[in-house]
């Protein structure tokens, strides 16, 4: 029997959208994670999308499922004195408490860090909120898009003509939860060694801000704000072998002119094999294609008259390449292109991911019983593979499923 990495660790969480993924990571690694939920469930339980045919049911929210696998659920109304006492007793049975409530909310109910730490000095108490526990905005209302905006990543995504783009998937919540998982684990290791617990304070704004990439240093060094550059990127010119192209049933991303893998002539070889190279074997196209890589582009930038000549020919080359990819499915273009060592990515739709050759061949998707149905469902597996103490993904709990069992064992 393989021991789990976090076996013997009890986590009690008072989380909804922001901190739930932290608890999931710990639960999948083997911690006993007990989620304390209000009667009726929180925001996530009541947000869609739901399992088809189960609209509005708190046990059927896929938004809840994805961030709450492998946990137990205990329903307690912490506005009620007797339930509040049980919640406190439960929290004091934990090695780690995770919470994502407005600052001061749990403290006002006797469940804050200071109160619990006073009674259990070894406790790790992790707060995952929009803006952290201190500072002038600590009490600001938060929702994922607010974290993405205020962290500096939204301004980098999208077209200048459009509003800045949010990244799908509650990424500010995810970033906060991932940092919270790291911080909680560091604090847990310390507590297990020394008996000293502590508070772990994570701000979603800060957690997400490292994803500004080079924008932070551009301001620091150069006092320039990096802006979003949309479809064409930093060089506002459509280049052969680069960019997002239409396929028969979707899109692919080409980055053939990057230094990795084969260069553009290998793409034309492929097109020729299928009789679709048109006139790209003729000059001036042949010559441009043979030279087209990042080094060539850098040279061109220093030679405007040569650049002007070449730029005039690019739309035709792009059109011919475009026709080739439109004749293929995105998956054909991706897999065959990659086998030819051409840097091509499929723009995966959810259906493509569900069928992805690599994920399927490595049995990444797992199966668990459907909390609201009879037949098992498939679900994404864990983010990592540990050879000795693997993470496993078990079904999310039904609301209050473990209330009686957990409370009676206290």
């Amino acid at each position, binding site marked *: 029997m393989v021991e789990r990495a976090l076996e013997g660790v009890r986590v009690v969480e008072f989380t909804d959208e922001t901190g739930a993924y932290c608890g999931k990571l710990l639960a999948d690694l083997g911690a006993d994670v007990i989620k304390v939920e209000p009667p009726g469930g929180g925001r996530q339980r009541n947000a869609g999308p739901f399992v088809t045919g189960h609209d509005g049911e708190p046990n059927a929210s896929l938004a809840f499922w994805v961030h709450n696998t492998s946990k137990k659920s205990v329903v307690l109304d912490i506005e009620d004195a007797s339930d509040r006492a049980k919640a406190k007793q439960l929290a004091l049975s934990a090695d780690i408490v995770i919470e994502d409530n407005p600052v001061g909310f749990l403290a006002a109910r006797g469940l804050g860090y200071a109160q619990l730490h006073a009674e259990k000095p070894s406790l790790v108490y992790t707060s995952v909120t929009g803006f952290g526990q201190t500072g002038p905005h600590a009490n600001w209302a938060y929702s994922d898009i607010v974290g993405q905006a205020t962290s500096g990543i939204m301004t980098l995504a999208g077209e200048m003509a459009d509003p800045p783009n949010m990244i799908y998937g509650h990424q500010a919540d*995810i970033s906060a939860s991932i940092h919270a998982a790291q911080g909680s684990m560091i604090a847990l290791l310390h507590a297990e060694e020394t008996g000293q617990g502590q508070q772990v304070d994570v701000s979603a704004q800060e957690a997400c801000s490292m994803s500004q990439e080079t924008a932070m240093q551009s301001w620091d060094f150069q006092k320039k704000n990096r802006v979003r550059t949309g479809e064409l990127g930093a060089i506002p010119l459509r280049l052969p072998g680069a960019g997002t192209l239409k396929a028969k049933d979707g899109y692919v991303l080409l980055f053939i002119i990057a230094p990795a893998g084969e260069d553009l002539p290998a793409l034309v070889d492929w097109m020729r094999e299928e009789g679709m190279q048109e006139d790209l074997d003729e000059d001036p196209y042949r010559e441009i294609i043979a030279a087209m890589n990042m080094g060539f582009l850098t040279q061109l930038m220093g030679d405007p008259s040569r650049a002007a000549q070449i730029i005039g020919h690019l739309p035709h080359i792009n059109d011919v390449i475009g026709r080739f990819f439109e004749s293929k499915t995105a998956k054909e273009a991706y897999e065959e292109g990659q086998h030819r060592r051409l840097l091509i990515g499929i723009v995966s739709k959810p259906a493509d991911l569900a069928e992805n050759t690599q994920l399927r061949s490595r049995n990444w998707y797992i199966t668990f019983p459907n909390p609201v149905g009879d037949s098992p469902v498939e679900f994404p597996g864990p983010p990592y593979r540990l050879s000795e103490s693997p993470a496993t993904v078990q079904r999310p709990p039904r609301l209050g499923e473990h209330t009686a069992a957990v409370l009676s064992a206290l």
Partner: protein
Amino acid sequence: MTKRPLEGLRVGDFSWFGAGPIAGNTLAQFGAEVIRVESEAKLDGLRRGHPFAMNPDGTFKEGYNVSGYFNNYNCGKLSLQLNLNVEKGQEIAYRLIEKCDIFLTNFTPRVVEKWNLTYKQLSRVNPRLIAAYAPMQGMEGPHRDFLGFGAVLTPVTGLSEMSGFPNRPPFGIGTNYPDYVVNPGHTVTAMLAALRYRKRTGKGQCIELPQLESVVNTLGTAVPERLVNGTNPTRNGNRSISAAPHGAFRCADDPESVGSNDRWVVIACRTDAEWQAATKALGHADAASDPKFATFAARKANEDDLEALIGNWTAGLKAEDAAATLQTAGVPAGVVQNAQDMLDRDPHMKARGYYRYVNHPEAGREAHDGPAAVLSETPGDVPGPSPLLGEHTMDVCERIIGLNMDEIADLLADGVLV
């Protein structure tokens, strides 16, 4: 000074670019001794990547040590220059790994094999080793050798399809987003779990983080909707299925902001109460009772009109004022901040002191991301500047690996320590 919590932990950081080095960076921030193994023979591209520090005359500084992109992800590490393309370099790598608790790489399986750094080989050298591999697709499987980096990972993992406005092609999210938090953060989480396991059992292990799996795991409900419901959802801009309004709204130009014609406030109303509060705060309380917008269902049905209306309200407001006014009324709102806001204008970021400034011997004073998990008793920090290429080669060879000066001289002469 308090002891930092990971002091005593030694990490052999054989990674490059973003996702690997950031994992090592986090460990260094919490006190681990992180040895970045690198070589001019296969130089980390970030050492040559913009943005570079500047000279007082406005020109860029030059060389391998002045990239802010690189420096931000390698704070306080030691740099050992070691050529892994030669057998002697691999022998030295083994002698280093013998002395490490953690090994980290994000090189492709092909390079890992060429350098003889597979888990099978390393665990023979050091059975207690926790060895983390973070390739794009996995160490095994039919796509393990597919080419890629962040720019390609973003479309392949579904982030491009699911993000942005539906009238635009799925061109991505502007950055190599998964490299910065999702992949390194998952890697460190797994390492810490493996450390706990080792403390209890004495056993090391292999961690594999296929970046594809790591990112798809965070892709919201998109894939479960396919697996459970059989649907194939796509991007829907800034809108939400459980909040309206939910988006970014243009505000007035701000002459103090560089790029001043690009000021926006985001607003998210998850309940009718938040919507009513928002209308009142922005001075248009009458809109709350307009039947077109009174209920969540009505706001979703008239979302184009709703967004145009709010855009009219915010157009004349300073973004910071709009956000503060809405926040005073309890409505989730915030400025779409740029880097200038993050570093110099946001009073909250300043008060919390997230960014740390260190003096780098070549780049000068530079900003670093601080630890995003703030621990009250054993806090992390930015432990120092990032290393110059090969700055600690002698120190690591002598003090950690235990080579004597003659051996080091031979290795230098043989082109191993380059």
